[in-house]
C-alpha cells in the first residue's frame, strides 16, 4: 500500500513538473483560440519583449491567438524548428533563410521584423580601423562561424573587394568584446546592442563601421513553411496584426516595456539597460519603407541583393529567387 502511494506521488510530481513549462492553462476561452508557436532565434530576451508579455498585455489574446514562444540558439535553429513542425513561425535572420532555401526548403517570408541592418564591426581607436579597407590583414572576432556576425562581415569585405582570405577570422563566442578589449583581436563583428552593452562594461573609444551603410539588409524576418502558409492563413493574418500592435506598443511605451522585461526576459535584469536595448530595436523596426507601407513592410530588392551577395561569396550554391518567397499578403491593413 505504502509502495503504491509512493509510486502515485512520484508519478503526480513528474506530471506536474513536466507540464510546468508547457503551461496547461485551463480557461475555457482557450478552446476557441487558435494557437501559434513562434520559434525564436534566441532565449526570451529584452529586445523581443513585445513577444513575451502577452500574459500581461494580451496583444495576441485579443486577436484570438494563443501564443507560445520557444527558444533557440540562432536563426538556423528557428528555421529547423518550423521545418520539424515544432513551431509555425520562425523569428530568424535572412542568412539562415538563404541557407534553408539553398537546401531546397519551401519557405515564405511574411514580415520584416527589423528592416535595419544592426550588425557592425567595432575596433579600438588605437587600431586605426576607420573604413572596411583597413581590415586587410587584421584579426577579426565573430560570435561563431555560422552566425550573422560572420556573414555580415563577409558582405562588408565583399563590398570593398576583400575576401575572407585577406583577413583572419576567429570565433570568439558571444562575449566577443572581451578579446577586443584584451587586444587578442583587432576588431570584432557584433551588433548594435552588443556594442551598447560593451560600452556599459568599460569599452573605451572605438571606431564603428555600420554594415547598413554598405548593405542595409533586414536583420530579422518572420518566416513560415509553405505548408503553414497554405493551412494557417487566418491564424497568420491575426498573428501579424497582433505582432504589429505589440511592436507599436513597444515603440510608444519603451519605459513600460523595459519594466516588464525585468520580469519576462531572461536578460532583463537592469531596467535602464533594457530601455536602451528596446530603443535600439525600436529604431531597427522602422525604415523608409515601413513609413510608407506600415510596420513589417518587406523590401524585396534588398533581400534579393543579400541573396545574390551570399551566392557570390559562395555561402549559397544556387541562385535564389526571393520574389517567389516573399509575400505581403498578411501585411494588408483591414478595412
Amino acid at each position, binding site marked *: 500500500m505504502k509502495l503504491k502511494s509512493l509510486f502515485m506521488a512520484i508519478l503526480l510530481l513528474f506530471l506536474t513538473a513536466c507540464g*510546468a513549462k508547457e503551461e496547461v492553462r485551463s480557461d475555457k476561452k482557450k478552446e476557441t483560440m487558435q494557437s501559434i508557436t513562434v520559434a525564436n532565434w534566441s*532565449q*526570451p530576451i529584452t529586445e523581443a519583449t513585445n513577444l513575451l508579455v502577452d500574459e500581461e498585455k494580451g496583444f495576441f489574446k485579443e486577436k484570438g491567438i494563443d501564443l507560445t514562444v*520557444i527558444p533557440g*540558439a540562432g536563426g538556423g535553429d528557428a528555421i529547423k524548428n518550423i521545418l520539424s513542425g515544432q513551431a509555425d513561425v520562425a523569428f530568424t535572420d535572412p542568412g539562415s533563410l538563404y541557407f534553408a532555401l539553398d537546401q531546397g526548403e519551401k519557405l515564405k517570408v511574411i514580415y520584416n521584423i527589423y528592416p535595419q541592418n544592426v550588425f557592425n564591426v567595432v575596433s579600438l581607436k588605437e587600431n586605426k580601423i576607420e573604413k572596411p579597407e583597413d581590415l586587410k590583414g587584421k584579426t577579426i572576432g565573430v560570435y561563431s562561424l555560422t552566425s550573422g556576425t560572420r556573414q555580415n562581415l563577409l558582405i562588408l569585405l565583399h563590398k570593398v573587394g576583400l575576401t575572407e582570405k585577406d583577413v583572419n577570422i576567429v570565433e570568439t563566442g558571444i*562575449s566577443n*568584446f*572581451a578579446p577586443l578589449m584584451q587586444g587578442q583581436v583587432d576588431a570584432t563583428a557584433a551588433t548594435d546592442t552588443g556594442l551598447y552593452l560593451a560600452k*556599459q562594461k568599460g569599452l573605451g573609444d572605438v571606431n564603428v563601421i555600420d554594415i547598413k551603410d554598405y548593405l542595409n539588409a533586414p536583420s530579422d524576418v518572420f518566416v513560415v513553411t509553405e505548408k503553414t502558409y497554405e493551412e494557417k492563413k487566418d491564424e497568420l493574418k491575426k498573428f501579424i496584426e497582433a505582432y504589429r500592435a505589440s511592436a507599436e506598443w513597444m515603440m510608444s511605451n519603451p519605459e513600460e516595456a523595459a519594466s516588464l522585461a525585468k520580469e519576462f526576459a531572461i536578460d532583463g535584469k537592469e531596467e535602464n539597460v533594457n530601455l536602451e536595448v528596446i530603443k535600439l530595436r525600436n529604431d531597427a523596426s522602422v525604415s523608409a519603407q515601413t513609413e510608407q507601407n506600415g510596420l513589417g513592410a518587406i523590401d524585396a530588392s534588398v533581400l534579393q541583393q543579400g541573396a545574390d551577395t551570399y551566392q557570390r561569396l559562395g555561402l549559397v550554391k544556387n541562385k535564389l529567387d526571393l520574389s517567389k518567397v516573399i509575400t505581403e499578403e498578411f501585411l494588408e491593413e483591414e478595412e
Partner: protein
Amino acid sequence: MKKMPIYSLLLLVLLLVIWEWVAGTLSELVLPAPSVIWMTLIDGLASGYFTPHIIRTASEVLLGLLFGCLSGFIIGILMGEVTFLRKLLFPYIVASQAVPKLALTPLFILWFGFGMTSKVVITALVCFFPLLESTVTAIQTSDTHKKELFKMLGATRFQTLIHLKIPAGMPGILAGLRVSVVLAVVGAVVGEFIGSSEGLGALIIATQAMMDTPLMFATLILLTVFGMILYLIVSWFEKKWLKRYQKEI
C-alpha cells in the same frame, strides 16, 4: 592534521585576495572581482531574480536523479542477479554511455519538447550509469560465506537479495549515488544550454550575451553550492546507513 581545515580556509582567503587584486587591473568583463560577484549573488538572491531559475534547475535535477537512479538501481539488481541479462545488456548499456550526451541534446529537444521533460531525460540518462554500475558490482560481490549461510538457513533468492545482498552492497551503491548526484547537476545544466528559457544553465548562456560576467560567476557559485549540498546529503545518508548496518552486524 587537526589544523587542516584552518589551513584550507586560509588558502581560500589567500586565493580570494589574489583574485581581488588581479581583478582590479582588468575589466569586469574579463575577470570580475570576488567582491563584485558576491554582491551580484546577494542582490540576485534578495531580489528573487534567481528564484525561478533555481526552482527550475532543482526540479530537473531531482526528477532526473529520481528516474535515473531508480532505473539504474532496479536494472542493476536484475543484471547483478541474472547472468544472462548482464551478458545480454551490458555491451549496449556501455555503448549508450559512450555517446556524448551534449551532442544528443538538440535531438532530445526535438523528441521531448522544450519543456522540462527533455532536460529530465538527459539528467536521468547521465545519472543512470554510475548507479547501475555500482549496483551490479555490489550485488555480485556480496560475501560468499554469508550467502552460503543464507542458503543453509533455507532463505529464498528474494530473501537473500533483500536481507543480504542489497544491505551489504549499500556502501558501493551509495558511492555510485554520490557520483550520480554531482553528474545530475551537470546533466541538467547541459540540457538547459540548448533550447531553454529558464534555469541556471539557460541563465549562464544569457549572461554571456548580456556581457555580465559577475552574474555568470554568481550562477556558477549557485550550481556549485547546489551540487555540494546534494553530495553532502548523500554522504550524510551513507554515514548513517553504515553506522546502523555495522551495529546490526
